[in-house]
């Protein structure tokens, strides 16, 4: 078990983000029914254990003018996957880079990266930079530009029935 019920309670209390006030962790502590020191020590522990990837501002690309986003998918020979995956993730414009399963015959691709750019042309150029620099000319790929965004919100980890069986009063679901 990587995290315990108290961590889950804390994660749920953090779902709407840190409030903008003098002592935001103290505020979260109240919502999670914890001592303020407990909130900080648990968050620090989750950072150290790599459960938290990063802690900070979560930015909306779209509102900053990065309006073109493409999921670029590649059919990479399994032996080369780890090396190429790490190399691809290192490009500054690649915002995610994951291995996922192929689902043959409909889906032959096993490496997915996300590129956010200010225009379609810029994203297309960035794909070509990857192809060029990593020598992927002969690797089958597809570029799936987004057309419409129907929903985007933070991950929602609140269980319908919390571990202790009662809903704390301030633990409301995030509006979606």
């Amino acid at each position, binding site marked *: 078990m990587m995290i315990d019920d108290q961590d889950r309670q804390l994660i749920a209390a953090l779902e709407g983000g840190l409030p903008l006030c003098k002592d935001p962790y103290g505020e979260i502590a109240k919502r999670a029914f914890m001592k303020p020191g407990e909130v900080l020590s648990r968050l620090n522990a989750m950072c150290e254990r790599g459960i938290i990837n990063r802690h900070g501002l979560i930015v909306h690309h779209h509102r900053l003018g990065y309006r073109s986003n493409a999921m670029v998918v590649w059919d990479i020979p399994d032996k080369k996957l780890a090396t190429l995956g790490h190399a691809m993730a290192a490009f500054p414009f690649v915002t995610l880079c994951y291995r996922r399963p192929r689902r043959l015959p409909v889906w032959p691709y096993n490496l997915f990266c996300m590129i956010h750019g200010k225009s379609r042309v810029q994203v297309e150029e960035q794909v070509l930079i990857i192809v060029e620099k990593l020598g992927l000319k002969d690797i089958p790929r597809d570029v799936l530009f987004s057309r419409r965004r*129907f929903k985007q919100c933070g991950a929602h980890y609140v269980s319908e029935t919390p571990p202790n069986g009662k809903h704390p009063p301030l633990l409301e679901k995030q509006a979606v």
Partner: protein
Amino acid sequence: MDMEKTRLPERDAHEEVPRLSALDKRLLNEYQHGFPLIQEPYAAIAGEMNISEDDVLKALERLKTLGIVNRIGPVFRPHTVGWSTLAAMHVPQERIEYIASIISSHPQVNHNYEREHELNLWFVVTALSEEEVNATLNEIAEQTGLEIIDLPMLESFHIDLGFALS
């Protein structure tokens, strides 16, 4: 489902990009990771930047109101706190808004995009457990009568430092 209440996708292609101050840019560039984990984090940031805590709070408040900052908080490594998957579907074009609204109505769905491909609807399902994710996929398959391609993450090559502003 009541079509009147169906949320239409945001029409943001023509929206103006808000102007950012030097302070906004610094906050966005420097605090997407490593946000202070101490009792008074905004005061600590203010100290770093040689401005008042009030200025930091006001700038962040504005960035939130503008929708540039979604929230401040932790981003978890995939599959540690819960489970998630990326799912794809082929939806006939004339049904896509309706099908998308069914999918978006699930609280476990946190991203739902139309993309340019024969598999034209892509969504992310996140929940506390793999079982709950699978149950949601099954429910969506039943509600829509469409086949779902389930593409869970198997390995992450990405080191998440947030998004660099150019």
